[in-house]
């Protein structure tokens, strides 16, 4: 007796899955499953990133006026004609007023120095964690992430407890008869705050590249006659460059626009663009000027990212 169900020339009747039918229906309208999956993040970015960005850009081309909203409309209708008025005065002011240029330069300087110091502090920590014995590694990583369990603001306030005139550090120094140091309201305090807050963002990407680094490469380098520091310079450092770049970006970008740390720890002479922006927005209620400051800051931050990204891509391709 021939068994028809096992005969390959008679395939069993196909069972239609319900979602297959949906997929076919969507395909008729030109939507594939892949597109469907992409719609959610695209919508999210559109609503919460691109549209607000466009609004900010639009406001930056208006002028300040009293009322609600506190800026002039871009589009006006007069005698049945639609008029588009774009003011470049806010951008011109950014370049003509020394305050803004100085604030940008000072922000970049502070962010850059902080990034370099976080790198110098974070690299050995990341290296030590990556080379720590297995059971220790997760504990150490947990310790790096632990500060995130407390509010950022609280931690910055806690730093003032350390650094103020009668704070812990000065009390300790007082035990040895050392005059109290002025730390609060100085650039020093801002650096301490920035480095302390952003250190985990440097350590984590460094750790991920260093932990992947094959120990055999380091042994091979030693075997071929390299002393430990030579091995570090010619093997470990170049191979951890992707982590260095990623960590530096993660520290540099938010540090440039940082507001809370300079506001709480910095003094009046600590000039950072985040504070200028805040003052324009809430102090002077000059929304257009504030928007122009924000757009220019974006440009300042985006350019180095693009350059680094390019360098990173070139490295991967090589």
């Amino acid at each position, binding site marked *: 007796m021939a068994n028809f169900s096992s005969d390959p020339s008679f395939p069993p009747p196909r069972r239609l899955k319900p979602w297959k039918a949906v997929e076919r229906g969507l395909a008729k309208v030109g939507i594939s499953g892949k597109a469907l999956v992409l719609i959610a993040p695209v919508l999210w970015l559109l609503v919460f990133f691109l549209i607000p960005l466009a609004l900010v850009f639009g406001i930056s081309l208006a002028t300040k006026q009293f009322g609600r909203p506190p800026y002039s409309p871009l589009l006006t209708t007069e005698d049945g004609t639609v008029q588009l008025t774009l003011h470049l005065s806010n951008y011109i002011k950014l370049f003509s007023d020394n305050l803004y240029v100085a604030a940008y330069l000072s922000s970049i300087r502070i962010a850059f120095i902080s990034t370099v110091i976080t790198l110098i502090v974070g690299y050995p920590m990341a290296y030590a964690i990556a080379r720590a014995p297995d059971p220790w590694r997760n504990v150490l990583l947990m310790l790096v992430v632990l500060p995130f369990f407390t509010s950022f603001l609280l931690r910055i306030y806690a730093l003032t407890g350390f650094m103020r005139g009668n704070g812990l550090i000065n009390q300790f120094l007082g035990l040895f008869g050392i005059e109290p140091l002025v730390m609060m309201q100085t650039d020093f305090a801002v650096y301490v705050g920035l480095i302390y807050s952003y250190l985990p963002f440097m350590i984590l990407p460094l750790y991920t590249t260093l932990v992947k680094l*094959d120990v*055999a*490469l380091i*042994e*091979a*380098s*030693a*075997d*071929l*006659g*390299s*002393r430990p520091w*030579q091995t570090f310079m*010619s*093997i470990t450092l*170049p*191979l951890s460059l992707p982590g260095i770049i990623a960590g530096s970006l993660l520290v540099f970008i938010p540090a440039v626009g940082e507001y809370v740390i300079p506001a709480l720890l910095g003094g009046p002479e600590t000039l950072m663009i985040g504070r200028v922006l805040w003052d324009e927005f809430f102090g002077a209620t000059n929304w257009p000027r504030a928007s122009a400051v924000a757009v220019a800051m974006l440009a300042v931050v985006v350019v180095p990212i693009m350059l680094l990204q390019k360098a990173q891509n070139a490295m991967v391709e*090589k």
Partner: protein
Amino acid sequence: MAKKPLIAADTRPWRDPSATPFVRIRNITKKFGDVAAVHDVSLDIFKSELFCLLGGSGSGKSTLLRMLAGFETPTSGTIEIDGQDMTHVAPYNRPVNMMFQSYALFPHMNVEQNIAYGLKRDGLPKPEIADRVAELLTLVKLQDYGARKPHQLSGGQRQRVALARALAKRPKLLLLDEPLGALDKKLREETQFELVKIQETLGVTFIVVTHDQEEAMSLATRIGVMNQGEIAMIGEPTDIYEFPNSKFVAGFIGSVNMVEGVVTEDEPGHVRLRSAEMGCDIYVGHGVECAPDQILSWAIRPEKVMLSRDKPDAPFDANVTKGVVEDIGYLGDMSVYQVLLDSGKRLRVTQTNTVRGNPDAITWDEPVYVTWNDTSGSVLTV
């Protein structure tokens, strides 16, 4: 493929008790915590030898190699290379280079830079480095690949770059950790041959770690079989195979039939064992250090056992027993017979297929006589 002895005295210095060893390992022990990975190993290796450390995983062979390279410090004992104590010398100060199992090529450098890496550390002038790199690329037949990055190479090419890099500094001693382990079978056989050729031309002393007994047998001048952190036997490939010193070595290398027997005659010229397992007496044609009534192990390789339909001569009234062919494995060049002896013991016997498609070959379920020469087996006391 093993080194052909040109002048016996010259190429086999280990047979000359007055020869000075090149590498002298003395009572080396390495403990990780409480576990001894290597336990009290002493070993002499001579100049221009191709010495294989053979063992299963966890036998301590890699740890021993890493101590020679300087990546591990021995817990006790000394390592001497070319007359100098190297026990506590850092890896970068040793006249030793290593070829890593994973090759450990620097991924951010091209082939030339990888090979030149060690030479640059020596501060050689640039033109000299370039010459040396070109020379090495020719040696490993990769002349046109100097500008490639490791990830653009095949496994076999990477292996050769690793070899070239390890040879670049003209080390006195080259350590190779599973050098052929990552290659497929065909490529492995070719590379084996090349490796021996390169070793012969350069005259460098090679110490190779491998778990592959075939590789060890075909490469080595001598083999050190390791088991649980100790050296079980050191000897030339033929010694290891034909005259194993212990049950472990006999069982580890190749396949073997092993039985137990009671000593019934213990003469200076021969020994007779009564073996219930074999169902007959075993006559061994040489003296053995043993006592009457002692229980000994006796091992014989499958290819040294003969099968016949007719009862063979039994000159000593021994070494002949009966069984039935239970199973045959046809491997092309030879066939493996599993013979069930009357005692219930199963013997493994191989026969070379010298006649093409032999219609008269012994087949399944046939009763057969099993016999062997009085010098074919090994008596194993440990």
